[in-house]
Every structure is written in C-alpha cells, then in structure tokens.
C-alpha cells in the first residue's frame, strides 16, 4: 500500500497548481495549517480560490498569501479586522470575495462532502446573501437554495495522525478542519505528531483516514493577535 506520509512540507503541496480551489482550516488563531500555507507561499502558487473562515491575521495564517497576491477569489465568513492584506487587495479590486454566513459555509462544504447538490435555508433570505439564488417558501418560511462548495484541495491541521490518516484534534483547534477534510478531493494534513497504527483508539478518531490523502509532520506555528 502506498504510504500517505510525505517527508516534507514542500513535497506535500508540490502538485497544487495555479488556479486551484483550496480550503484552509482554522478559527480564532487555532487549528490553522500554517506550515502548509507557508509552503504554498514559497512555491508561489497563484490565482487560487481560497475557502476559509477568515482572510488572514496580518501576515499570519492566510495573510501571507494575500500579501503576495496569490489569491484571486475568497469564500469566507469573516474578513475581520486584522486581515489588512486582504482588505488592501480587495479595495484595489485585485481579490473578489463571496461573503457567506458562517454556519452556511459549513453546511455548503458538508453538502459537497456528502454528495448533496444543495439545500434550502432561511438564513440570508431577504438579504444581499440571497442575490441570484432560487427562493421559495417551505412550511410557510421564506428560504433560499444554497449550492455545495467543492474544492480541489483541503489543507488542515491535526494534533495526531496515524499512517492511515485517522486524525485527532486538540481542544477547539478542531473547528473547520474535519468538515474541510471531508469536502475536498485531496486532503493534506499537517500533524503535530504521527503515531503508529492503533495508537489512536478507534473510538477516539475524529476524522477517519478515508478522508485523508497526505500527511506531513510539522510542529504547529501559531500567530497571535
């Protein structure tokens, strides 16, 4: 069986092409695949569509990708106060952004993971989120049709991975990572630790290895602020 374990961060992302659609895990400074993001930045991949809760924390997290002008379009729920490099590019029209309510961002990715072609929700009905979307009334409630969000790659951060890609996450660093791992065609994991098969009790596995394609060991990097 071909091993999923890759020797280096650069090798783990070597085949990600320009124009790729990429999901990035992380929320609130926790659970970001910062080592993989920096490898992607080094490789100089450009014109990517990034799917992420936020748009970077200054140079940290996705910030470096916006700083270097590597992102063409972003699908996010919180282009927040510290995403200055995104905001500069957005103001100049160099990056476009689809703003998605956070829970709907999750469900649209989960729909992609589950092979569902969409779902109706009341969230966003009657607001600018509804523009261009089919609207109907179900059970007396006005709702809109939301489409799945697919991706070519997901870059995620785990605490432990075994060689099959069974994963655990630390505390609230779990956040978007398990959802993105299921939604993308190719899931690449940076894990603090790679452990032998069986070292993670089956009942403690959070993401089953079926969703994971490549694993690289890397000591997590955290950006404050």
């Amino acid at each position, binding site marked *: 069986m071909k091993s999923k374990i890759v020797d280096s961060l650069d090798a783990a992302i070597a085949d990600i092409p320009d124009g790729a659609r990429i999901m990035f895990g992380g929320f609130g400074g926790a659970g970001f695949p910062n080592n993989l993001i920096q490898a992607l930045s080094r490789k100089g991949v450009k014109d990517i569509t990034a799917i992420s809760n936020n748009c970077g924390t200054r140079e940290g997290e996705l910030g470096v990708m916006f700083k270097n002008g590597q992102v063409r379009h972003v699908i996010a729920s919180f282009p927040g106060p510290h995403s200055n490099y995104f905001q500069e590019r957005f103001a100049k029209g160099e990056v476009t952004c689809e703003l998605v309510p956070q829970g709907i961002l999750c469900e649209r990715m989960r729909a992609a993971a589950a092979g569902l072609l969409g779902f109706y929700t009341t969230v966003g009905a009657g607001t600018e989120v509804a523009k261009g979307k089919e609207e109907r009334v179900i059970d007396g409630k006005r709702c809109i049709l939301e489409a799945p969000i697919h991706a070519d790659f997901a870059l995620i951060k785990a605490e432990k991975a075994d060689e099959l890609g069974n994963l655990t996450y630390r505390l609230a660093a779990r956040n978007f990572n398990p*959802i993105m791992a299921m939604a993308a065609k190719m899931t690449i994991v940076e894990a603090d630790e790679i452990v032998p098969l069986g070292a993670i009790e089956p009942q403690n596995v959070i993401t089953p290895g079926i969703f994971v394609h490549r694993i690289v060991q890397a000591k997590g990097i955290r950006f404050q602020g």
Partner: protein
Amino acid sequence: MSENVTTEKPRLTREQIAQRAAQELTDGAYVNLGWGIPNLIADYLPKDLTVYFHSENGILGMGRRAKPGEEDFDLVDAMKVPVTLIPGASFFHQADAHLMTRGGHLDVAVLGGFQVSEKGDLANWKIPGAKGSG
C-alpha cells in the same frame, strides 16, 4: 420617551451590562454568547448557577475567561479570547456548533449589537457604507 430623560441616566459600563444580563440566565441552560459585551457574561455568572456556554467554534461548557498564565490558545472563544472549561464540557466541529444554533437546540442566545432600538430592532451585521464587518 424624551431625550432629556435618556441622557440624564447614568451610563452603565460594559461590565455592568454583562453582570445584569447574566442574571437573566437560568440554571442548566445552554447559552450562546455573541460578540462584544455578551462575551463578558461568563465572568459574571451568579455562583449558584450552572450554565453551559456555547461557542460557534465548537465548544459547549465554556467557563470564565482564562487568567494570565493559564491561557491555552487552542481553547479560545468566538472572539479569540482564551477561556476555561467547566465539568461536562465538550468539543465538536464548526458545522455541529452552528447546527445547535440554527436547529433551535440552544435555550438562549445573547446577541451583541451595533445599534438596538427601544423596540428591540437590531443592527448587528454590518454598518452601511463602513469598511469591515461585525
């Protein structure tokens, strides 16, 4: 209500508002805390109450905010503030966190707001014409 009456009232501090809101919560409730002042409520919970605070990043059972020296930056609330846990706490992914909210499983949500009218109309998402979001 005349403007004069409103302006003569002493203005509550953020902490006083949080303290007052904490008194509205009931024992055993599952409660989401929104951005801003609601985020302070866990620090002012009356001692005889157990409330399971919910965070959109996948936590039930958040306690007070972490004190200097006890922060763990993998254990943060929705505002990126390091928090603590109470016995019975659990973690789950972001989709399940929002499922709890949208699916009506929580008892209370305390919302932060940019502006609130006296009738309860709430502006809490964006300010027209302003940069950034809420």
